[in-house]
């Protein structure tokens, strides 16, 4: 009887390992395929083989020297960096005010933020387009940064406010008695305590410009201003996939740093998401 159970357990374990291994293959296949694709000697999707005869890095060199790719990379990096700084500052300042102060207009402000984040993001596309056109910020990186930063506030402020609400107030009150100013309390006490959520907000705002397609396409027009998302999309959709291997090389160069960043900070990401769900 007991032996039977043991055999059953063993069989189940083997079955689970097999299943996990098969799934790992499915999960890894696209990743391995794109890396090998980028190292394939051919140019097209059709000539790409999963087990090529020889590998080459010529697509990376071509990509770096023959296309606008380095420019797109620099653009994206710039937009991502400034979006991260501006959005995080705006969000954290607003969240701190909403969490720690009681002032007229607070309830209405919180309610408005809650409602605003429910609208589909690009409902305002046309208006944003015209607004940027009027201000001369169309086809300009700062225009795009402003759009991203504006869009990140409602969701981010709620999330960070929720996190701040969970922090004990006793420390601040003690500091206040000692005569610390609002700014000192914020930088010396709140900031260190809220490191996980700050990382989360900064990181999501840094990654967003690498992923966003809709607004980048709306705002940026000329070839030298493009971000990676648009540039790579046009590489695959245009001209019948003759540039597939170049796309593969470009994709790898984007995916590697972002993926590493993500894995490095995944603890905070999951924590941030949970905070958003529980305290939102």
């Amino acid at each position, binding site marked *: 009887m007991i032996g039977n159970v043991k055999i059953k*357990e063993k069989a189940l*374990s083997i079955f*689970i*390992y097999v*299943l*996990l291994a098969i799934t*790992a293959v499915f*999960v890894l296949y*696209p*990743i391995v*395929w794109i890396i090998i694709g980028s190292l394939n000697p051919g140019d*097209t*999707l059709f000539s790409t083989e999963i087990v090529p005869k020889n590998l080459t890095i010529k697509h990376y060199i071509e990509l770096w020297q023959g296309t606008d790719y380095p420019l797109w990379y620099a653009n994206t990096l710039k937009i991502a960096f400034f979006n991260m700084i501006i959005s995080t*500052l*705006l969000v954290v*300042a*607003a969240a*701190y*005010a909403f969490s*720690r*102060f009681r*002032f007229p207009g*607070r309830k209405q402000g919180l*309610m*408005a933020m*809650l409602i*605003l984040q*429910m*609208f*589909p993001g*690009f*409902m*305002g596309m*046309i*208006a*944003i387009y*015209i*607004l940027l056109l*009027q201000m001369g910020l169309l086809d300009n990186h700062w225009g795009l940064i*402003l759009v991203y*930063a*504006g869009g990140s*506030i409602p969701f981010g*402020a709620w999330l960070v406010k929720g996190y701040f609400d969970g922090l004990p107030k006793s420390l601040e009150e003690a500091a206040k008695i000692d005569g610390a100013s*609002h700014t000192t309390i914020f930088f010396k006490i709140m900031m260190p305590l809220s490191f996980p959520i700050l990382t989360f907000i900064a990181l999501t705002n840094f990654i967003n410009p690498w992923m966003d*397609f*809709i607004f980048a396409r709306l705002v940026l027009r000329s070839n030298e201003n493009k971000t990676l998302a648009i540039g*790579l999309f046009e590489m*695959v959709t245009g001209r019948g*996939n003759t540039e*597939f291997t170049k796309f593969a090389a470009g994709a790898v160069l*984007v*995916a590697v740093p972002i*993926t590493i960043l*993500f894995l490095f900070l995944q603890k905070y990401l999951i924590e941030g*998401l*949970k905070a958003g*769900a*529980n305290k*939102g």
Partner: protein
Amino acid sequence: MQNQNTSAAFNPDNNYAKKGAFLSFLFMGLGQLYHKQFIKGFLYAALELYVLIFYSKPFLAALWGFMTLGEKVQVKSRGRIVEQGDHSIFLMIEGIIALLFLIIFIFIYITNIRDAYKTGKLRENGIPIANFKQSLKHTTEKGFPYLLITPAILFTLFLTVLPLVFGVLIAFTNYSGPYHLPPKSLVDWVGFKSFVDLFKLKTWSSTFYGIATWNLIWAVIATVTTYFVGLFYALMINRKQTRFKRFWRTIFILPWAIPQFIAILIFRNIFNGQFGPLNQMLVDIGLSGIPWLSDPFWAKVSLVIVNIWFGFPYWMALMSGVLTGIDKEIYEAADVDGANGSQKFWRLTLPLVMFSTAPLLIMAFAHNFNNFNLIYLLTQGGPVNVNYSYAGSTDILISWIYKLTLDQNQYNMASVVSILIFFVVASLSVWNFSRTKAFKEEDMMQ
């Protein structure tokens, strides 16, 4: 109210608070001047004078533009523009901006009246009034939260509220190609006509119902599959007997870590019907290739498959956390009661996991309902569907809106559909938020 000590300073004839408030209501700063706060009163008065002198005319013009959306049509003769005419959309946006500034001004106006009232109350009670320096200090102390939120408010007002108000208002105009596109022609307010058209006109209603049905099915399938696949793998990895937990978890979390648009574009190539490796493999083992992205049914299957690949790691990571957090004693108690494995799963694990992930499940549903990136980057809504207006077989509402806006200039209809989407997402979120504990605890809800 007044006790004996302050009665000396209290003069029943002087109703300072009400008088001050009334004077400030008549003209900004008058109340402050009446309270002998000269610098403050002068600043307030100067602000109102400045606004009245320089902005009343542009404001009325903007209001006129907003009401009429322009009256002069562009005049052309022999291909040349003779007269520019009114640009309805610019007029509308200028009108909204004017109204936003009006709201800000009214806010300052109310602050001014309140200030005069409060200072008056102080005077009634015989408390000395703050001079300019003191009130400046008071403002920086009390106004700290406002200082913090002002940038965020300005950003939100102009980059989120303004575009959204505009987006909503568009639904009540006839802003659409080919006959109502500024600057060539004017746009007019038409009330609920576009809403009626969407449901009554055959070309619109059949497309709308078709897409809405698929959108709903898609959101349900996408959410349910990723949720349970995630749960399944979380259970397998968290099983006591499974070894190398970290290793498996790291591998399976990769799809979540890779930038989504890159991964979608990779899948677009993998599923390529002609040259893709998937069909090559099928052909190699003697099967015929499947038209993954060019057949309506298979395109939908591809979407679901790709979505599982993306979506399950998120749930797996989250549920791993939930599973490790469950108190072991519950299971021990169940063992004592003689529960078997499947009973423990259905009666304990599943309800516990469901309970703690329910709010996120609903948000995931809302996210999938509007998953523009996946649909647009993988299939671009295709393959073509001849029965639809401006949409393909796999289009969901949000990608349809995108096409209506950017490719077809059907702005009013796009706006109507996005208002409908808003109601779906908003009702889900409100229901969801109102159920979470934190929201009930938040003092704003009481």
